[in-house]
């Protein structure tokens, strides 16, 4: 039996694991975008979620369809209903040849903070998002979350983002260990938690033919009206409000750290003092010829290591703040152009 190096046995092929190429781009269909926009807009400002269906091909994640989830009440019985609904929808869609493969989920950019205030405008980086990611990641190899901001889109910008948790962060989260040394080890900072993936939009030839036909003939379209609006102050005001709140949260977290460090240094001072006392005692005993006492005493409470507060919250808050800053930058930039435009108009 000649061993042919070109032909591998089935066992060999099954044994070699395929290395998945890193996800480089998310390809969404126009249909999915319209569906997401419709769903988020109808229920704004409430939080809405839905499931994304599609295919995972190489370094491209194709999203070909989606369906919305009903608003979930805080009731245990409804949990089973939710799962049933999902199964039912997947089954029905499968009958009409829609891709039956879950590739992620979408949500509108809203989150409910613990103070019963709904913070809008893009503060979606919460622990719940991370947990949902981890849940999905257990079953699907690659999943992505699409965030749509209906309020920002009223400014004339398509506020659609595709997010993914970075791998290093996921490992860290699984071990649930967010101490300083671990983070330094992995060289992980708050920017590394979420990765934003560029979005490509694809449409079938049929629909592009239809759209070309049905395109409005007017030279100015709706989103021009939105973009050239001069009054942006309500949007900016709300952004600033949320920014200030987040800074408050951040400073609270900082204080927690300071408190921890102070405690640790105080504990260390206590340990040193105790050690000194032991040493002098031991010297006295040696002189008297008695047994030496051990230099460590694990039962003494001052040797108990203090738990270091987790840095996850501060990271998330930092992410939110930077998000707000980015938004402010964007809107301010647009306002500049608009103001110069009005100035030029008036000079004429």
């Amino acid at each position, binding site marked *: 039996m000649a061993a042919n190096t070109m032909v591998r046995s089935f066992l060999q092929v099954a044994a070699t694991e395929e290395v998945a190429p890193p996800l480089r781009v998310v390809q969404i269909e126009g249909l999915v975008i319209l569906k997401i926009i*419709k769903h988020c807009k109808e229920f704004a400002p409430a939080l809405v979620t839905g499931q994304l269906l599609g295919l995972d091909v190489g370094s491209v994640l194709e999203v070909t369809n989606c369906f919305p989830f009903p608003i979930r009440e805080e009731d245990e019985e409804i949990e089973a209903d939710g799962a049933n609904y999902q199964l039912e929808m997947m089954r029905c869609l499968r009958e009409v040849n829609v891709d039956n493969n879950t590739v992620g989920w979408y949500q509108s950019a809203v989150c409910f903070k613990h103070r019963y205030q709904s913070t809008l405008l893009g503060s979606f980086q919460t622990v719940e998002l991370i947990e949902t990611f981890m849940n999905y990641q257990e079953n699907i190899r690659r999943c992505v979350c699409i965030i749509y901001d209906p309020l920002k889109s009223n400014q004339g910008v398509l506020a659609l983002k595709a997010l993914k948790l970075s791998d290093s962060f996921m490992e860290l989260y699984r071990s649930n260990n967010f101490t300083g040394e671990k983070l330094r080890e992995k060289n992980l900072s708050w920017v590394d938690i979420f990765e934003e993936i560029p979005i490509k939009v694809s449409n079938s030839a049929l629909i592009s033919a239809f759209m070309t036909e049905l395109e409005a003939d007017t030279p100015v379209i709706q989103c021009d009206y939105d973009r050239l609006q001069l009054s942006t102050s309500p949007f900016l005001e709300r952004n600033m409000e949320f920014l200030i709140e987040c800074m408050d949260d951040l400073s609270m977290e900082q204080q927690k750290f300071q408190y921890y460090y102070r405690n640790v240094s105080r504990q260390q001072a206590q340990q040193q003092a105790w050690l000194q006392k032991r040493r002098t005692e031991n010297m006295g005993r040696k002189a008297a010829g008695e047994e030496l006492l051990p230099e460590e005493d694990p039962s003494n409470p001052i040797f108990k290591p203090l738990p270091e507060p987790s840095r996850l919250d501060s990271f998330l808050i930092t992410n939110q703040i930077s998000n707000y800053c980015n938004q402010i930058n964007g809107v301010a930039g647009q306002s500049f*152009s608009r103001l110069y435009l009005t100035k030029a108009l008036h000079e004429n």
Partner: protein
Amino acid sequence: MAVTERTVLQFSPTLTAKVHPLVIFNICDCYVRRPDQTERVIGTLLGSVLPDGTVDIRNSYAVPHSEFSEQVALDIDYHHNMLISQQKVNPKEVIVGWYSTGLGVTGSSVLIHDFYSGEVPNPIHLTVDTGFSNGEGTVKAYVSSNLSLSHGEQQQAGGRQAGDRQLPLAAQFQEIPLDLRMVEAERVGFDILKTTMTDKLPTDLEGMEASMERLLALIDDVYKYVDSVDEGRVAPDNNVGRFLWDAVESLPKLSPAVFDKLVNDSLQDNMLLLYLSSITRTQLTLAEKLNTAAQVL
């Protein structure tokens, strides 16, 4: 016994329908994904009836069906299941009609229309011509009315009074005006939805640039029009003139000093915000460094 026979052709009152672009997208997607044996796709239309009487078609889903010669079989269970699922998300959307791809109304459509008439009193039938048979994609909406001969029978006392009996002869599909304004599609941007593949979503500034270019083109057009009217090349139109007058008048009448102050104030406010956000980001980087770099000795 006098029997009067009157032939009455009854027409239903004219409705208008408004279709959202999502519905067209859905239909095309279902058509592309149809199983190979079927020629056309049939499905349900969901939406609501607006207070002024127009039917607002907002969503749709395909229903598997099979047709042979003049017989059509529709998967009614599937239709009901999907309806229940959709209503869990959006209870306000109800059935308003059904759609099929292909130009014109065929014989088998009547049967399906009858079925949908059982669900909703006056269903709308939407046809989307995916085959582009006329060289263009036509989207039409129809309402059907039964053409019937009505008998009026009057009998003398002693007999029972029979009411009008109507024997339906045929169903007439009457086209109704369709409003295909694509406000949401405009919001997303036709460029994204038209081409088969875009490389990336446009950023804020690119969008701004596009809007300003369009505005500039409009102003150029207006200039040309005014010039040509001035030179006598084009007959002046009072309506257009009035619109132009309104537009020019809508500019606020402020003295240059006041206007400049306004603009400069807004500019300064924006600069302040930019400065604030830059400071915040610097603060964040610093805090980050301090937090993780601090070591417990």
